[in-house]
């Protein structure tokens, strides 16, 4: 049992950390330059999408289509040095505001500092969805119940955040065997996944449930499972300007917002972020990322991961499952319907 004073001390330390994160965001706001600001269009209860992108012209058309259909009304996107037309493409979209930054992705805590500033400035009081261009959110009944139905349900129960497992999707055969065309549903190609090699650990002090493993653990980190990327995410939050993501969208402060999985007494539904990283372009991108060393805190640990990807592997195995839709994910326990259904 923790004593009351050490609990208080922990709470105080986390508070300091949160304020430090907010302060960073405030300072880094100068690294952003406006490319196209349409934030005046944002209505009072609009659901907002936040993202940092770099050379994502291939994925963006499907990304925007998917989230528009779910009911995201405005996107606030930071473009980090794209040279493939991403910035121009985004600037043309009627519901997107774009900022540019030429500064280090890693030093801005993988874009989180920039997004925190935009969330302070524009997200307060809104449901904010923070996702990367290769993350496609699905949740129970998402075809018939847009995000607003979900946020309404959460609002009615005063639940401020919604969790999702990131599910790495991969093709059958070598990665470059099937070529993805812009606008296509990436999961026509990446239609396989690992369904039960996930490892979760509870971090008692921050109420944070870490999940690792999956296909990346199996293929790239069989000897260092603790280095495998984290798969737990909190992509949807009823934002307050005092909130701050800690590392990517894996964890957030204040810590009560981390109670989105089984830790919650409320039995909320959870979702899955289908991860479209392993399209054919990942091979070239890995070559570039290995050189840039901008993606992980301990970049050198991940050299063999990039090497593995550059080798154009086949991640498929006999036990892989073919993706059939959210019902399947709920049946497998990768997402929970919670009290949201029937």
């Amino acid at each position, binding site marked *: 049992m923790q004593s009351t004073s050490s609990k208080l001390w922990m709470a105080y330390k986390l508070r300091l950390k949160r304020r430090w994160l907010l302060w960073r965001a405030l300072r880094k706001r100068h690294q952003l330059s406006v490319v196209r600001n349409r934030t005046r269009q944002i209505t009072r209860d609009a659901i907002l999408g936040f993202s940092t992108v770099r050379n994502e012209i291939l994925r963006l058309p499907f990304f925007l289509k998917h989230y528009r259909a779910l009911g995201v009304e405005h996107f606030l996107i930071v473009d980090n040095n794209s040279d493939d037309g991403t910035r121009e493409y985004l600037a043309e979209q009627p519901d997107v505001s774009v900022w540019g930054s030429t500064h280090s992705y890693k030093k801005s805590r993988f874009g989180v500092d920039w997004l925190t500033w935009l969330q302070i400035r524009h997200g307060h009081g809104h449901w904010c969805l923070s996702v990367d261009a290769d993350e496609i959110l699905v949740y129970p009944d998402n075809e018939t*119940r847009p995000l607003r139905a979900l946020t309404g349900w959460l609002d009615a129960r005063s639940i401020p955040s919604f969790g999702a497992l990131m599910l790495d999707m991969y093709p059958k055969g070598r990665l470059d065997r099937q070529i993805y065309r812009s606008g296509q549903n990436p999961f026509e190609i990446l239609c396989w996944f690992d*369904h039960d090699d*996930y490892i979760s650990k509870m971090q008692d002090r921050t109420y944070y449930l870490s999940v690792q493993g999956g296909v990346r653990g199996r293929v790239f980190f069989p000897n260092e*499972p603790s280095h495998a990327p984290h798969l737990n995410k909190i992509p949807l939050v009823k934002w307050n300007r005092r909130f701050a993501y800690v590392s990517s969208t894996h964890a957030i402060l204040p810590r009560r917002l981390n109670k989105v*999985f*089984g830790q919650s007494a409320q039995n909320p539904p959870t979702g899955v972020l289908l991860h479209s990283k392993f399209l054919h372009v990942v091979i070239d991108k890995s070559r570039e990322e290995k050189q840039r060393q901008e993606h992980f805190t301990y970049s050198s640990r991940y050299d063999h991961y990039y090497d593995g990807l550059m080798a154009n592997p086949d991640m498929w195995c006999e036990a892989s499952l073919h993706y059939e839709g959210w019902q399947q994910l709920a049946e497998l*326990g990768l997402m929970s319907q919670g*009290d949201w259904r029937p």
Partner: protein
Amino acid sequence: MAVGFIILAHEHLDRVAQVAGYWAQRRSPVVIHVDARADDEDYRELQDGLARFDNIRFVERRACEWGRFSIVSATLDAATLLLSNSDDISHVFLASGSCLPLRPLEEMNAYLDKHAGTDFIESVTTQEVTWTVGGLDLERFTLRFPFSWKRRRRIFDGYVKLQRRLGISRAIPEGVRPHLGSQWWCLTRETLEAILTDPDREVYDSYFSTVWIPDEAYFQTLVRKHSTMIESRSLTLSRFDFQGKPHVFYEDHLQLLQRSDCFVARKIWPRANLLYREFLGGDLKKLARIEPNPRKLDKIFAKAIDKRLNGRDGLQMQSRFPKAHLWNLPRTCASYSVFEGFSDLFSNFETWLEKRTGTRVHGHLFNKRTVKFAGNATIYNGCLANSAKLRDYNPEKFLASLIWNTQGEHQSFQFGPADRQDISGFASGDPNASFFVITGAWAVPLFHSKLNFQRVRRVAARYQSIEARHVNWLRQHEVRAHVNIWSLAEFVETPMPILQTILDGVDPTASRKLTEVPKMADLTGFGQFVQKLKNEGMNPHSVGDFPLGRQSDQPVSPAKPYAVR
């Protein structure tokens, strides 16, 4: 005769307009009350939009707060207005702004004609009520609730506690027998008029104004005084979830709502265009006098609640991380067997068991170097890899996953002191586990090994202490697994009945006679080996009482098994 409607609305007035218009167009009078806190412009729009109906009226707006008497006052106002302007209605139906009719109005009128004089209102004594959340049932009537639950929760709770501690209980007015029930009712004109014109109404109103959630109590109680015929059920289909929040119907509930045969449902998600289009748009399908059947829904709801309470045994997932208080549930989803010492004693135990039982038999799953799946597979169901490090990152989850992903096929595996021991606690507390243990059997391969004896002695000592710790798990009194333990000496004494026990234990449904037995290692001279260990100062007690030279008198020939009957 027709039914008249009262609609209590506070938001999404565009939907209210649609529903009110639907009823008014079919010649049912409607009175609408809109919460004073709703947007004024929306309200004006609503009035303008419905101006063409002369049978829709609006009552003065009150600020309604959940759980307070203002909602009842608004209902009383609306009922008075409705009854004084419409002489031809026989029933009054109370609906909310998120209600949606599911069946044609003529059918509802026909149904109410058939039940002339019946009041449809859920009205249950406080003792029978099972659904109140927060434990307030009779206390709703005997305590005072002057503070808002929504805005001043702490003061609300504190004041309730204070009254309980002081034993304060106020008198219930004479003639009032507390009843509770759903807020949504359909009363006859006579009953409603009797309630409105009751000479004691002032007394009741002032009493109920400090009752907690009076909209679920006022009419439900007073109807007992005035009604001649009560059907204690609501004609409105509504459900509450586990926490007492009203369940919301979305577009995917279309068929469910159609099949319910109910007249009206709530709450409908205001943006469920499909539902509004389907039920208000064209002509609803005539069902020809079918009784409303909300029970059809209950089955589905019961299933969901059961799943919520009990989870799915043995499924460990981030969405259902097992909680401490659920820790006495089965930790896996199906039975499995753990064999200890058998593969040391029998060279072909795994193939023998697999052949005899037709089940899956793995090697040492918890081997320190690699996971020894059956058939030396590198990846197993559920994409479990044979990497020992991945397994050891969370060995309990590994085992639960393996059992979950091989459902329908009994799993067995070998275990011993040379393996990682992390799962001892987990598996010994799991009622799905069966342990078959021969203690001291690890000595057999040591006996056959060519290692230097000092080394053998050290390894033996280590294995024995590891095994002892493991066996302690199996012998503690919280153990929930099925445990069978024999010492090596005991086992060798009577192997046949024990092997039969094992076959029965792995698959209790099939009665398999022991016709073929596995090949036992040669134990000639094992007695001396044990004695030599003792002479070196180690006490191999787990081997059991192995008499010196016994085995050498009766050498076991591998070709001719020890006993076949």
